[in-house]
């Protein structure tokens, strides 16, 4: 296939970008969930 | 009190405020001149090029100078929280916004009144026979600039780095206006000056769209 490198790079870019974004969102969700648990416990103690 | 009357009062206040010191106007004119001169160093304009690129340069100078000039519109109100006082008055938010839009329109137009002849001299472009049509294009373009710019001034007044934020938000939004204004002006500066109907209609449409949007959304702009 002619110009395969460009095609492949494009393909990779599409998935890499979405993939990285999804991972970052998932990680932040987990972090925020932990934070919420922590804050809820703090609230209980009052 | 009707919106028109309230807007007129706000307009009068803004004008009085500015004409006391005239610092904003002066700074705007000087800055636009600086841009014009800088361009002459960056690109060396011969007569033919002046006609082609002149209109672009003119409007870029206006846009840059305008973005700086529009900031104080609402930023000034932050200092003594005078915006709260305005809001408590029995006038609609649109009156406040409209008054400021009109004030900025007048300031910008005054600046242009000085700049266009200077520009014509510096770049050797004859204004004979196109003055009224040029004024029409300038007015339509300036209206779009001031409507959107005043709204964004209200928005960025609440943000940090507002001097940087305002042009950053405004300039991409105004690219259609820039294109239309530049093309209209260019066709007036050409060998056979002509008024480009399509771009004029576009400019008018642009102004109507954003004036309407400002009217519909003004309450959310100025609320506490």
């Amino acid at each position, binding site marked *: *296939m*002619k*110009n*395969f490198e*460009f*095609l492949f*790079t*494009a*393909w990779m*870019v*599409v*998935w890499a*970008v*979405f993939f990285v*974004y*999804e991972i970052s*969102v*998932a990680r*932040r*969700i987990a972090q*925020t*969930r932990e*934070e*919420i648990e922590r*804050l*809820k416990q*703090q*609230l209980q103690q*009052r | 009190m009707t919106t028109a009357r309230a807007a007129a009062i706000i307009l009068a206040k803004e004008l009085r405020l500015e004409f006391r010191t005239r610092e904003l106007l002066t700074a705007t004119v000087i800055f636009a001149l600086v841009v014009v001169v800088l361009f002459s160093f960056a690109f060396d304009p011969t007569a033919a090029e002046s006609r082609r690129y002149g209109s672009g340069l003119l409007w870029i100078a206006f846009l840059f100078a305008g973005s700086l000039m529009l900031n104080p519109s609402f930023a000034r109100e932050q200092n003594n929280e005078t915006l709260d006082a305005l809001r408590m008055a029995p006038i609609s938010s649109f009156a406040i916004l409209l008054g400021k839009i009109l004030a900025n329109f007048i300031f910008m137009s005054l600046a242009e009144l000085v700049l266009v002849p200077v520009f014509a001299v510096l770049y050797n472009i004859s204004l004979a026979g196109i003055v009224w049509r040029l004024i029409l294009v300038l007015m339509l373009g300036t209206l779009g600039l001031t409507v*959107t710019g005043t*709204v*964004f001034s209200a*928005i*960025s007044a*609440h*943000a*940090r*780095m507002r001097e940087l*934020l305002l042009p*950053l*938000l405004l300039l*991409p*939004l105004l*690219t*259609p206006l820039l*294109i*239309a204004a530049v*093309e209209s002006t260019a066709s007036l500066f050409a060998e056979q000056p002509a008024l480009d109907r*399509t*771009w004029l209609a*576009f400019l008018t*449409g*642009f102004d109507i*769209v*954003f004036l309407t*949007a400002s009217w519909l*959304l003004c309450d*959310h*702009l100025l*609320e506490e």
Partner: protein
Amino acid sequence: MKARIAITALVALLIFCAGYAALFIAPDEATMHAIQRIFYFHVASWNAMFCAFFVAFYASVAYLVTGNRKWDALGVSGVEVGVICCTIGLITGPLWARPVWGIWWTWDAKLTSTFILWLLFIGYLLLRGLVEDPEKKASLSAVFAIFASLDIPLVYLANRLWRTQHPQPVIAGGQGSGLDPTMSKVLLLCLFAIFCVMILALIDRYRLELLRNEAAELKFEIESRELDAADGAANPALQKGGL
């Protein structure tokens, strides 16, 4: 949780099929050959971008009308995901242009307009970052999003009236338009696949924003209770069945 895993797996499968179709099933194009296959992802990401920005526009209006913060959460999600799709489009564009036209970038109508869109909505994200108060952040960015969305057709119209070098629209308009039927099917598959990925990202981002809002509310609750406690300690009258 299980539903989520199932859906993700399904979408992953969809992506795989779409990719396979784009790379191997679709027929080779006459002039550009293999590189033309970028077209399937390139167009699909534009489509996803417009959908995301439309969601943001709708959510912004809904927020201003109802005042419900959930709409604001949806708005920022729409813009963020839209910017992601826009970035993908702006990267795949030059990757296509370079082998075909020999240049990485060209200031033609479509590409320029989309670049401006990217700048506009990045501005939205910057605005949100620079406003502290959550209520103001929500309403001001909603107003901006509406202005930006209204600008979208104007940007495209202005650029189109002004100049064009892009391949003329293949599907809608002009002579020589119309796609080979297999190509159309592959395109639809890719459109659908990337659309689904976009929706997934949108939903996740929305959930994140809702969780953030919840965390912020809890923090606020804790802080105000601390303040009340401090007041109570300073003034015992407030504690004993006073206020």
